[in-house]
């Protein structure tokens, strides 16, 4: 018996594998199945949100109104933001957490497997509800993904109620997912895996999960206040009834700023796993990496009003939020320096995960620079709500969060499905995405500085050239993602079999189990030296 227990490979013989058919997916409590569902779901949302972005870019290709009316344009900008943030990026990271955290800490599954199933299955309903509003009378939400009151309350279309319930459901799903991650990491690590021995992906997710638990209820609170204002005659956000529209923004951004880090910290973790592997050298400054992530997370709670420099806060408020925001550059800088130093004097190879990670570091840093510029309150009066801001947050979210997710998929896909992907196609995917993304978003810096406001369906003639370039880039980037879909399916169906370690320099528990990872792993915890 003990001989069997010592060897996790034999676990699969003790169970009878997953049930067949749809029941497997509906009732599964297996972290790998749930992880896969999260990832496929988020990819579907990525394509839907992407189509909305392309609608926007098609309309903005030339000045004048050609394809859509302003009302529908506003629904597209709103839904694109909501779908990408809550439907694509966040579920993708939860999917990665599901697949990887148990394998990385040597646990047999997530700590709360039934809740795990529920967290996932809420999502299709939440987004079904949200997307259905597009087909209703009066149209879907049209007040921007930041849904500022009173545009989103007194002046909103009737479908705002569906939006509010959709957000509530996503929030419940996220909070449960986060509780699951915390419970798994704190209780189910293999013996000997102390906190400071955990892989950085696990660390970043632990901190992300705490951020989620702290701020998702704030989001739930703010949408509930909206619901009250819309249907029950309260005036939280209506000055005529003693409320304050700016209160909405304070509460929203108290959620919203940590939310930004929720979308980027797990990507930090992914990149911190991948760069050492392909540099064949341990991560530089593991401890300072952990402290930097923790500092960023703590600072994220005291910088929210930098999104609101123009609302007319008192001078001292502006100064406080400006200084606090600038401070974030310090731990973020530490992380970038550590990644670069990890590559320094390594033995580098450039497979797809590494390419996406290097692009992540460079382009995320550019996004960080524009972030630092935006932190300077007096200059922010010129940047605020222009395309400069659009450029900034797409630079941190597309090559940040999304390239991080691509890197992770390429890195761990052979472990998940047991087959290698086509490196040639993956390189095509990378270069097309890289060029398309920069073409789409770099000109937006110029547009913003030259004075183009965001969220407008039509623009003055001097913005025409850069908008055309940007649209060409966006369509290039969008079309390239179909290649990604194709090459992932190709790898799953007919890729070359992968070895257990997959990558020459890979280290960590997930690389000690077979490829593909058996349905149940680490039923007996491994021993960590």
């Amino acid at each position, binding site marked *: 018996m003990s001989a069997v227990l010592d060897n996790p490979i034999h676990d699969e013989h003790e169970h009878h594998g997953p049930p067949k058919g749809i029941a497997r997916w509906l009732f599964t409590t297996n972290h790998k199945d749930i992880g896969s569902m999260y990832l496929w779901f988020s990819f579907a949302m990525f394509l839907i949100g992407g189509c909305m972005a392309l609608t926007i870019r098609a309309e903005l290709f030339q000045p004048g109104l050609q394809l859509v009316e302003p009302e529908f344009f506003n629904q597209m900008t709103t839904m694109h933001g909501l779908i990408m943030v809550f439907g694509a990026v966040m579920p993708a990271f939860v999917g990665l957490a599901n697949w990887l955290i148990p394998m990385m800490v040597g646990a047999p599954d997530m700590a709360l497997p039934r809740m795990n199933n529920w967290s996932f299955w809420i999502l299709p309903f939440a987004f079904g509800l949200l997307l259905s509003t597009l087909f209703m009378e009066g149209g879907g939400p049209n007040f921007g993904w930041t849904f500022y009151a009173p545009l989103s309350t007194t002046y909103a279309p009737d479908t705002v109620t569906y939006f509010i319930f959709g957000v509530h459901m996503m929030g419940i799903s996220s909070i449960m997912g986060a509780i699951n991650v915390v419970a798994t990491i704190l209780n189910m690590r293999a013996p000997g895996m102390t906190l400071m021995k955990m892989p950085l992906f696990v660390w970043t997710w632990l901190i992300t999960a705490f951020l989620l638990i702290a701020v998702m209820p704030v989001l739930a609170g703010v949408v509930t206040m909206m619901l009250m204002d819309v249907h029950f005659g309260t005036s939280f956000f209506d000055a005529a009834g003693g409320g304050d529209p700016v209160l909405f923004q304070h509460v929203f951004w108290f959620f919203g700023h940590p939310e930004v880090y929720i979308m980027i910290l797990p990507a930090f973790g992914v990149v911190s796993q991948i760069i050492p592997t392909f*540099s064949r050298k341990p991560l530089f400054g593991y401890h300072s990496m952990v402290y930097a992530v923790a500092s960023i997370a703590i600072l994220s709670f005291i910088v929210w009003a930098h999104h609101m420099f123009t609302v007319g806060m008192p001078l001292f408020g502006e100064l406080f939020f*400006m200084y606090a925001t600038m401070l974030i550059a310090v731990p973020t800088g530490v992380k970038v320096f550590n990644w670069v130093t990890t590559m320094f004097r390594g*033995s580098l190879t450039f497979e797809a995960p590494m390419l996406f990670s290097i692009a992540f*570091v460079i382009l995320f840093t550019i996004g960080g620079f524009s972030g630092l510029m935006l932190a300077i309150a007096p*200059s922010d009066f010129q940047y605020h709500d222009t395309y400069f801001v659009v450029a900034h947050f797409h630079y941190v979210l597309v090559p940040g969060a999304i390239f991080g997710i691509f890197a992770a998929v390429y890195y761990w896909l052979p472990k998940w499905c047991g087959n290698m992907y086509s490196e040639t196609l993956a390189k095509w995917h990378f270069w097309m995405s890289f060029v398309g993304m920069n073409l789409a978003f770099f000109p937006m810096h110029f547009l913003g500085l030259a004075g183009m406001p965001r969220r407008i369906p039509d623009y003055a003639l001097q913005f025409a050239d850069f908008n055309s370039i940007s649209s060409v880039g966006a369509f290039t980037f969008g079309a390239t993602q179909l290649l990604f879909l194709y090459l992932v399916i190709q790898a799953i169906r007919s890729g070359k079999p992968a070895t257990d370690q997959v990558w020459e320099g890979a280290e960590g528990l997930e690389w000690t189990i077979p490829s593909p990872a058996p349905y149940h792993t680490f039923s007996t915890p491994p021993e960590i030296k």
Partner: protein
Amino acid sequence: MRSRLGLGALSLLLSAFYAADVSAEYGVNMTRGVTDISHSVYDLHMTIFWICVAIGVVVFGVMFYSIFKHRKSKGAVASNFHDNTTVEILWTIVPAIILIVMAIPATTVLIDMYDTSDADVDIKITGYQWKWRYEYLGQDVNFFSSLSTPKDEIYNAAQKNENYLLEVDNALVVPINKKIRFLVTANDVIHSWWVPDFAVKRDAIPGFINESWTRINEPGIYRGQCTELCGKDHGFMPVVVRAVEQAEYDDWIIQKQEQAKAAAALAALTFTLEEQMQRGEEVYLKTCAACHQPNGAGIPPAFPALKGSDIALNDIQKHIEVVVDGIAGSAMQAYGDQLSDVDIAAVVTYERNAWGNDTGENISAADVVDYRNK
């Protein structure tokens, strides 16, 4: 390959910003503007930009050096170092010092921007869906300013003019070399009043008044836009400011005051149905057509049709009431404050007789005054 592309992009970026430094109309950089504050903001922007470029060159330089020199295909053997306390402390402290260097000028400029005391001219700016209202406090001058670009240009039926979407019917007129204080608020949703050349951007928030100020150094026409999403026509509510010499400004104020008197005198006259329809159509297209559409069909359910509507065909009192006082909790604003009695009478008459609403009724300014006096 990768590094050549990276360096190419970097040099493109540098040259773009350099070119912008030389000639602002190239449209890739922030404007230097025409006020002392906007110059300070521009300098701050460029200082921080160049600091970022310098940091980028060092960090990416080290990175690309590794990518070239330390690749496995060139026989690089990985070393094993993974900690260095001195280096790590150093690269925490040095950025912190750089940040302090940035924060000092930023603080100075911000304090300057917040000093709204001792203004020579006070102008109240109110954002409406989707136009601006300017009131010169203590001067009895008060008017609306809305987009004047024809629909045909927007829908590509006509050649777009050079100020496409950045032109208005009534520009804000201000004197140069005077401290002008703006009191910014809104009537419905949040808007934001922005003129890049002044480096002034302030949110217009319903129920609250924000302050800002400017002192313009050069006469000219300066254009900006609403920068806070405010609904359907957010992209179609520009700001145009004409800065003129003091003498010209004084003349303009007197002229505006006389116009207001002349408009008030119209209320005593009576008009034929044709005259009413003509005036009413002008007012309708400028004020009502954005929502209710030029053909009166509206965009239901948010913006109901007027063509064949119960109110427009039957209850005259209700019709006047809706136009004067609006409908609380909906997008229908109260126009009692925005339009003169003559214009309200004309537009109500127009709505009751256009698009087949052939009631034949002619509402006079006196009818509107009667309603207001109730």
